[in-house]
């Protein structure tokens, strides 16, 4: 614990937090740049840096990026990140009505609050959950992965079948390499470089950075109508906290829970919390017209997903969202294998990460309050200056990972592939999650079958395995099951 504090409060530690959070807020605010993109590009470059310091920097970017999106969502009606899509619904109308300062002030307060509540869950729950995780059998792990896949397909997109297809495409892409059971190569087409399959990071940089840049180039002429931050006060009174307390606590808990569920992240968290807040509000009709509750719900929930999604990452090595996929890779690169061992063998690393999230939240609130005018201007940096640099770092980042030009081609290939998929309206997030979970799930299944001598019985006799399996089936077939329960009240919605 002391070592972690010493690191976090050392000049390097504080610099990592402040710079990381600022960078995060910036990429979060610029439409088209996301925290995932930046973190994926930074990870290969932190290889030579101390593990604690690297992770501090990375989680600070994460916290900043989820928060920064609301600036442009409110002022330009262009959400900087998907996590802030819902914030535009009320943030922009409120800003247009001449209260941009108040809209941002509320958003910052809610973000800070959401971050803190989920941080409390992270700090208290991750160790017990990691202990619990060792009790999970191979088949329980396998059906946990199934459940995660079912969840992304049902919550993560507009069309169930498209999300599911995307998820399975991800699993398929994870297949090349050596088979986990026999160690024999499969789908490598005789290429030696394919023996390790596709590395997650180049795939991720391609899918989420390159394809996004292509879209940005296509929309080069798009401009948002900026609203200048006026004279209205950003600062809030005590009554604002009191009035929004219930909403903030509720939305933060929703966000944390969505975060814990593997595979879905900040954008789903904010949408869910927003609709719950709307459903429970006395002034439903005001939502979408510049209503304070809307901003608060969305922003506290999207920040709350951070703490939530770090829990399965640290406790079980299962990524809670796309960003955690990258953080998982970063942890392993720095010899920090998530799981119960992590808490016992490198407690300082865990304390550092958890502490960094706390400090980054504070830094985020201060940076946002102090510099939102500047950031709002900075987001208008002309794209021709910004995009080539990002492309350059896409190449360098993919190469630096293992020193193979092969990975760079993989990155470019997936950039194009991701772009085409989006054109076909197939969401990319399930693909990436499927890609990561596919490997984890297949290995768990193979191990389970090896242990049971080829029998599938444990899937039904192990209570946890059965529970997860049933939940995944229900989630998957919910739209067809639902009518059976709601027949009595037709046309309810």
């Amino acid at each position: 614990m002391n070592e972690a504090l010493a690191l976090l409060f050392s000049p390097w530690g504080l610099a990592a937090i402040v710079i990381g959070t600022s960078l995060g807020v910036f990429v979060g605010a610029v439409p088209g740049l996301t925290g995932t993109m930046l973190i994926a590009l930074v990870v290969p470059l932190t290889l030579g840096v101390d593990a604690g310091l690297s992770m501090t920097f990375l989680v600070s970017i994460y916290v900043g990026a989820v928060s920064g999106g609301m600036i442009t969502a409110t002022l330009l009606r262009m959400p900087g990140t998907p996590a802030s899509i819902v914030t535009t619904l009320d943030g922009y109308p409120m800003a247009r009505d001449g209260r941009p300062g108040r809209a941002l002030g509320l958003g910052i307060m809610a973000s800070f609050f959401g971050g803190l509540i989920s941080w409390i869950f992270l700090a208290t729950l991750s160790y017990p959950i990691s202990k619990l995780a060792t009790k999970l059998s191979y088949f329980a792990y396998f059906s946990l992965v199934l459940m995660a896949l079912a969840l992304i397909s049902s919550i993560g997109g507009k069309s169930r079948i498209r999300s599911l297809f995307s998820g399975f495409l991800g699993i398929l892409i994870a297949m090349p390499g050596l088979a986990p059971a026999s160690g024999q190569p499969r789908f490598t087409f005789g290429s030696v470089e394919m023996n390790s399959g596709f590395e997650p990071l180049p795939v991720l940089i391609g899918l989420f950075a390159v394809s996004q840049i292509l879209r940005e180039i296509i929309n080069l002429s798009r401009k948002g109508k900026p609203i200048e931050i006026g004279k209205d006060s950003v600062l809030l009174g005590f009554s604002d906290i009191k009035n929004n307390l219930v909403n903030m606590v509720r939305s933060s808990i929703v966000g944390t829970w969505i975060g814990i569920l593997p595979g879905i992240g900040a954008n789903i968290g904010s949408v869910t919390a927003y609709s719950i807040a709307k459903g429970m509000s006395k002034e439903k009709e005001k939502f979408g017209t510049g209503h304070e509750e809307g901003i608060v719900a969305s922003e506290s929930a999207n920040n709350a997903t951070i703490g939530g999604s770090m829990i399965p990452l640290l406790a079980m090595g299962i990524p809670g969202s796309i960003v955690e996929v990258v953080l998982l890779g970063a942890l392993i690169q720095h010899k920090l294998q998530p799981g119960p061992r992590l808490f016992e063998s490198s407690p300082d690393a865990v304390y550092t990460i958890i502490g960094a999230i706390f400090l980054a939240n504070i830094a985020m609130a201060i940076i946002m309050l102090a510099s939102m005018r500047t950031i709002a201007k900075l987001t208008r940096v002309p794209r021709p200056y910004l995009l080539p640099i990002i492309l350059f770092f896409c190449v360098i980042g993919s190469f630096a990972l293992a020193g193979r030009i092969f990975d760079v081609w993989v990155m470019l290939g997936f950039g194009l592939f991701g772009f085409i998929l989006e054109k076909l309206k197939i969401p990319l997030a399930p693909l990436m999650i499927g890609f990561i979970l596919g490997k984890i799930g297949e290995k768990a299944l193979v191990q389970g079958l090896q242990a049971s001598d080829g029998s599938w019985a444990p899937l039904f006799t192990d209570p946890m395995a059965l529970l997860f399996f049933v939940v995944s089936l229900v989630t998957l077939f919910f739209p067809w099951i639902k009518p059976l329960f709601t027949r009595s009240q037709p046309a309810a919605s």
Partner: protein
Amino acid sequence: MKRSLIFHILAVVLIVALLLWRFGVFGDSAKLSEYPTRAIRVVVPYPAGGGSDTFTRIIERAISEDDLLPVPLAIQNLGGGSGTIGSREVVEAKPDGYTLLMHHNALLGTYVDGVADFGPDDYEKIALTGSMTMVIIVRGDSKFQNLQQLLEAAQANPRKVTFGANQGSQAYFTAKQLESQMDGAEFAMVSADGGADRYARLIGGHLDAGIFALSEYLDFVSPDGTPPSQNIRVLTVMSPERHEAIPEAETSKEQGYEVYMQNIYYWWAPKGTPQEILDKLADVLKKAMANETVISELNRLRINTEYLVGDEMLQRMDDTLAVMRAATTNSDQQAKIPDIPFFVIVITGLLFLGVIIQSILGKVPEEDTVAADDDSGTYPTHAKLAAICFVAVAIYVFILQLKILPWTLLSCIMIIVVGGLMSRWQPKRLLIVAEIALIVSLGTAFLFTEVLTNVILP
């Protein structure tokens, strides 16, 4: 206007400073003329954090601290497939001394078992640098007290006692060798990743036994007083003699089975690497093994410090191979695993059909259109420009692969071209793009050659 002038002045100053650095005005940048002139890549075929990785990094630190090589060793973890992914990479690498492999006995195991179609003969051997005592571990409250009981259980209920070992790994052979000591004894062999994974499975009760390196055991064992159900215990030390670190643990010999296992670290180079390079590297390793820190670190990790080259090294290798070959005569049956890729392909195909049908029926979901709608108005799109930029980057990567131009220059050109394309070659913008290109490419080169030296650049 004033602000942009300041920007230009700052940019030019920075560029000049970086150019001066690049062309060696500061300090010595004497070109190295003989091997090695650039970073040497050492492939560790296991994920970072495992025993092999830790070992390699201890040696690497000594080499860089004592300046035994003028260039850095860049360690690359290529885990997976029981170590075959990383080792195969080195078989195929150029025999120029810039790609090496640090791998232990598992390389022999995957060869003997047929998991890999290459073996020790496909490499040049540099040196043997250390060995590890191995122990069989069970959970603290396990009913097994010795090898006899473990094997009897495997005999009474064949393929019910779970044993963590990847197919083709040395642990796997040792387990097979143990099975052959008692008629009809058969373990259920479960693939397991690294020590951390096996530990978690043992603690959770999903594995009955597993083989660990002594160093892993000492690392994982919880302090005295931990309830046995949450701790691990040594069942047997797989050597003829007890180890001073755990004097109370019985050896396999004492328990009546002459089955031994020791893991040995070797350094390998691609077949055809010139002898003088091998000698030079062997010499570097010899000096590294004599480094005080290496000796104390290896003692701490309970790795026996050894250094062998030439025939003595080959003799040790042949001994291990002989033991492994003897164990493979044992019958070998794997649990029935379904053809997972086949099912994934079928399901993906069916879902794809579903997507097509959905598209034909016109039930395509709406996009999230919050970002771009009435307020932004309509604007022209630039699909062609995006395609040209993408092709430009692809050409950049292709030339990078050919290595005919220095990457800083090439990167600079790429940024100018792509940035220029996007700004439609407006002179005013082009100037800024060029400044950015110089700063970014030279700055990156500076950052990763002077500050963060672990990063491999093209």
